[in-house]
């Protein structure tokens, strides 16, 4: 049966489907609905835990700590809160804590335009925190995908033993569509594997330590071995999720967009080929290289000034054309001018 479901709502339902049982967060647009849903859930269900923390620093620390304690833990925020969470995310990488950070983007920097969507935190999701680590991030473009990808995100976090960033934006968060949850194909939830806190004599520390948790700061080999280990695991897990959408048309132009932008430019996909990355990190290098082959024009449309475009250029080794949609209005009318400039075509002719 179809029900009307918003992106935030769908993500939350997906998290439950994945077995999530601990949420800590702090109110912020456009994710506050998730905080509210988690609070309600905790009232109904004794084994679901909720904390409205005093700030996002506390929320992120609580999420990583709850994961060590054995929970499937997650939070939801947007750019400003995500910035406050970065130190804990870095800690989460070091103590290998499977966790999911939902980040729905809005216009920044700073408070920006809080109720308007953006895609300006792509690079923050990649390396917003300090130190060497290997990000995993997914980005849906519909409520249905918010649901299925939530399960994927929790599974990937568990398999890679690391924080996973679930990217979203204000449009997708608040986009309501009829969804038949029963009809969706959902991967089975991967259970927690590491024994919870209180069952051993381990030491979970952010310090460069050996596998016993004994600090070895004077020994670069120990840290290097750890980096190699987590890098390998991250690559292996990423390989299981080569998620993207590629629509080939008889055209010399390939458009690349993701999240809400890919929904807005959907009418252009009849005329031009289109590539939509769903796994944002690690960058889909091979897949992009293959998809980009043979096109005269490669155009990245995104609600930021070329953050993903830069990564595409790096992956395929050539320059791409960029159409940035800034200020919080992601619409076809705004593509009209740049489309003429970049491809020499009138929007009306391709619709």
């Amino acid at each position, binding site marked *: 049966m179809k029900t009307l479901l918003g992106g935030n709502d769908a993500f939350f339902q997906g998290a439950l489907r994945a077995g999530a049982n*601990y949420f*800590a967060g702090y109110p912020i647009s456009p994710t506050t609905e998730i905080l509210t849903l988690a609070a309600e859930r905790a009232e109904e269900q004794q084994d679901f*835990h909720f*904390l409205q*923390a*005093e*700030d996002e*620093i*506390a929320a992120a*620390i*609580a*999420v*990583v*700590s*709850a994961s*060590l*304690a*054995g*929970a499937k*833990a997650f939070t939801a925020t947007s750019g400003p809160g995500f910035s406050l969470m970065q*130190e*804990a995310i870095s*800690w989460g990488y070091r*103590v290998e804590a499977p966790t999911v950070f939902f980040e729905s983007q809005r216009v920044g920097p700073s408070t920006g335009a809080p109720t308007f969507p953006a895609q300006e935190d792509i690079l923050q999701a990649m390396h917003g925190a300090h130190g060497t680590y290997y990000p995993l991030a997914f980005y849906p473009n519909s409520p249905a995908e918010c649901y299925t990808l939530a399960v994927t995100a929790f599974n990937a976090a568990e398999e890679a033993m690391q924080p996973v960033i679930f990217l979203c934006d204000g449009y997708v968060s608040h986009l309501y569509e009829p969804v038949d949850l029963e009809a969706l194909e959902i991967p089975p939830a991967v259970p927690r594997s590491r024994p*919870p*806190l*209180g*069952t*051993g*004599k*381990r*030491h*979970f*520390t*952010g*310090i460069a330590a050996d596998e016993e*948790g*004994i*600090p070895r700061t004077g020994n670069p080999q120990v840290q290097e071995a750890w980096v190699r280990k987590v890098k390998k695991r991250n690559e292996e897990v990423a390989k299981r999720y080569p998620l993207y959408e590629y629509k080939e048309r008889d055209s010399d132009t390939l458009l690349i967009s993701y999240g809400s932008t890919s929904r807005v430019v959907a009418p252009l996909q009849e005329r031009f080929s289109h590539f939509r990355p769903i796994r944002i990190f690690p960058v889909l290098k091979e897949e992009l290289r293959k998809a980009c082959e043979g096109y005269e024009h490669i155009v990245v449309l995104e609600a930021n000034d070329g953050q993903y475009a830069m990564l595409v250029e790096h992956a395929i080794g050539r320059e791409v054309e960029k159409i940035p949609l800034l200020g919080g209005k992601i619409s076809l009318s705004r593509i009209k001018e740049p489309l003429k400039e970049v491809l020499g075509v009138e929007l009306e002719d391709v619709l």
Partner: protein
Amino acid sequence: MYYKDLIKMQRYPHSWCPGCGIGSVLKNTAKVLAGMNLDHTNTIAVSGIGCSGRMAGYLNMDAVHSLHGRALTSAEAIKTVRPQHNVVVLSGDGDLFSIGGNHFLHTARRDPDITVVCNNNEIYGLTAGQYSPTTPKGTYTTTSPKGCKYEPIDIHGILRTMPRYFYARSTVWHVLHMQKCIQEAIQWKGFAFVDVVSDCIEINGRHIGYKKASEMFAMYKEKYKIVRDVEVLGPHDLGVVKKE
């Protein structure tokens, strides 16, 4: 159970300076845990960052060395997920009251059933001697070369504004008293705070007129007095104040 069974002896020699009060806090915490039959099967240790923040990692149980200032938040989340376990936080004054000050306020307000043992050496030891929120006014530190300009924070006073509280103060010289305070704190249902006045001989003591740790211990003996059955502790009173 012998208290040494609760300490990761394989990690010795430890990283603290000779004469540092942290050893006394760790040892006496371990003694209390051993006396109460608390070990890795029923207890989890949590620390923040600092010389004091290294304590949890020396206890022979699952230990979480969280981030600077975040030990209380970490401990509260762990207690939520593992409610049957005792959760004990061991950390320093800079960690708990400065960078962690907001968490201190809110964790105390939410009143989770955790125990906090603060090694209060009135200085940032690990980062080599800057003033902390508990540094007494007028004290020389590397960031207050002419004496600290500010009054120290009143933790006892802050906790006493809560409808329910447990605050104990002891020193590293009054070890039996410290043990009693820690034991009572663990037994307390709710947020229990043990403030242990302690020395950082290397980075603080030597610069304010003490040649050896024993001289600081003698000062604690002289200056601090144990009081019983009081509602409020004076600045140099040692004891427990609590309200159900």
